[in-house]
């Protein structure tokens, strides 16, 4: 704590020592300056650059590896067939398309964090609360955003006309099976903000997913697929949502909103805000969800500011 004007010799330690001993005052000292800069060199509104690499896994229908600073996540999408006759409580024919995926449970995301990605997440334990809640958040966001078109997941069969049918009735289309997508997200390295990166990996893997052409074979009574990749269909996405997380670090006097917190800042931030912004073909961008918890600092004004930042990032 050197101050040149005073005669008393101040103590001066390295940055790492201060960061370990007094993390909160360390962060505060960085942020309260005029041009505040965080300890990792970013400004409070700056996000980390994301790099995406898709299609690298051979046994998945779609895959992506997303790296956001030091956080790295791998996502693999696998498609398997669920026969309509196996569903215990079949949805009625009049079910809304939007609810079908959720009702039958055709999207199964799971986020696995016990991979040794950070010293706090060592293997050998079943998923803890963080992993479970993140998996559930991803699942509810997928259903909420209607990103997958249920028609892509249906395997239909046109029944041949029998004598009992009325002559002017068209051929009946029956859904014989559904594609179920298993979305397995593995966290390889963790440096804060697992949700954004996991969500980006899911969307990137969906963009990369192709489903083989499938039909119902009435003789063998099973669903058969064609191995030709030329006949496969890629998954159509209705919109491309992007998530942005902000951490709020508050001391007694001030509070600061930090975009894309890393592990050090996440430990110190009590409150977090996650904004998901989507852009679809018709509209430029729309707000999909805002989720906040942990404190009472962020009011309407700050939330609006976060949403604007998220939209900027999305574009």
């Amino acid at each position, binding site marked *: 704590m050197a101050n040149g004007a005073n005669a008393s010799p101040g103590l001066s330690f390295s940055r790492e020592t201060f960061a370990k001993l007094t993390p909160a005052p360390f962060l505060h000292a960085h942020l309260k300056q005029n041009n505040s800069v965080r300890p990792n060199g970013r400004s409070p509104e700056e996000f980390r650059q994301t790099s995406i690499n898709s299609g690298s896994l051979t046994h998945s229908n779609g895959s992506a590896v997303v790296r956001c600073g030091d956080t790295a996540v791998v996502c693999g999408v696998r498609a398997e067939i669920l026969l309509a006759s196996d569903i215990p409580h079949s949805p009625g024919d009049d079910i809304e398309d939007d609810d079908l995926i959720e009702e039958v449970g055709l999207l199964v995301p799971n986020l696995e964090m016990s*991979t040794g990605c950070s010293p706090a997440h060592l293997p050998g334990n079943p998923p803890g609360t963080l992993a479970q809640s993140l998996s559930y958040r991803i699942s509810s966001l997928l259903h909420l955003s209607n990103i997958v078109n249920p028609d892509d997941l249906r395997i239909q069969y046109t029944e041949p006309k029998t004598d009992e049918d009325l002559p002017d009735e068209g051929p009946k289309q029956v859904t014989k099976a559904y594609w179920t997508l298993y979305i397995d997200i593995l966290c390889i390295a963790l440096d804060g903000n697992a949700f954004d990166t996991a969500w980006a990996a899911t969307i990137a893997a969906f963009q990369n997913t192709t489903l083989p052409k499938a039909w119902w074979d009435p003789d063998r009574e099973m669903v058969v697929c064609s191995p030709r990749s030329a006949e496969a269909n890629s998954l159509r996405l209705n919109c491309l949502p992007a998530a942005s997380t902000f951490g709020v670090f508050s001391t007694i006097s001030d509070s600061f909103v930090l975009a894309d917190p890393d592990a050090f800042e996440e430990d110190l931030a009590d409150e977090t805000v996650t904004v998901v912004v989507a852009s679809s073909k018709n509209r430029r961008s729309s707000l999909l969800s805002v989720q906040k918890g942990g404190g009472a600092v962020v009011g309407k004004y700050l939330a609006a500011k976060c949403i604007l930042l998220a939209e900027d990032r999305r574009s």
Partner: protein
Amino acid sequence: MQADRRRLNAPAGGTAPPVFSFAGDEALAKRPIRTRKPDEHRKIFLRTGVVPSASGSAYYEIPPQGTQSEEGSLVPTSSSLKVTCTVHGPRPLPRNASFSPNLLLSTHVKFAPFATRQRRGYVRDASERDLGVHLDTALRGVIIGERWPKSGCEVVITVLEGEEDAWWGDRRGDEKSGGCGMMSVLAGCITVASAALVDAGIDCVDLVSGGVAAVVRDGQSKLEQTVLDPSPAENDVKAACVVAYLQSRDEVTEMWMKGDVGAETEALVDHAVKAAVMTRTVLAEAIKEAVELKLGDPVEPANGAPKGGKGKGKDVDMTG
């Protein structure tokens, strides 16, 4: 099962993997042929320092051979190997552990659900535990444990993509895993764990590397041949052996052999040692690069890290 309550489960009723019909498309179902020489290893990619929050880490990959994408088939003809390893340690043992004068090593190997042709579950099964034990044997002989009393070290391996045991077209009924594909995975795990241990700075006697050799039978000519770095999709494997080898001491810390070799056991082990020597050159190269990077320019950003994300912050006055 308890794990099922904590994860999002498949829809009730169960799902099955898709069945492909190759009627009229037999060209797509052709088995790949080994084009390498019998003592040639596939190209290996090895890199350390991929997980900065761990004490040490490494990533090992055998890229897929070029035959797959040309045919336009959705069913991949052969697999590649992608393994990532993180080392956390030396760390203090938990309170209730008894005193241990040596470093307590614990290994975990886990296959990702999308790692193999059949989807694997999230709960560790017997083959993964078995691999963990083999890896533990291999590393135990190489770590200098007495320098770290009362400490533990965790070696965590995640296999993102694993080799297969046989060519998928052969479908030999219910052949459980544990065949030759597992051995290639084990050899990769040993090499990557060694790189990660060096990255973590844990004292080792020497660099340990894994090598696989197999006796393969050619389908048509019924000739038997010993090859290094077998790919089960390409040949029918009669017997295989994986070793963990220390080159400068000429010691073998772990050996696992499977199949009927007859009188040729020692010859097979020698071939596996030759394969291990080849992997060691790649290992040494990768570690040297990493050390040069660490001692050289520290501001050099690693692959994928943003330019502004991990810059040096400016020093501040801590007052008050």
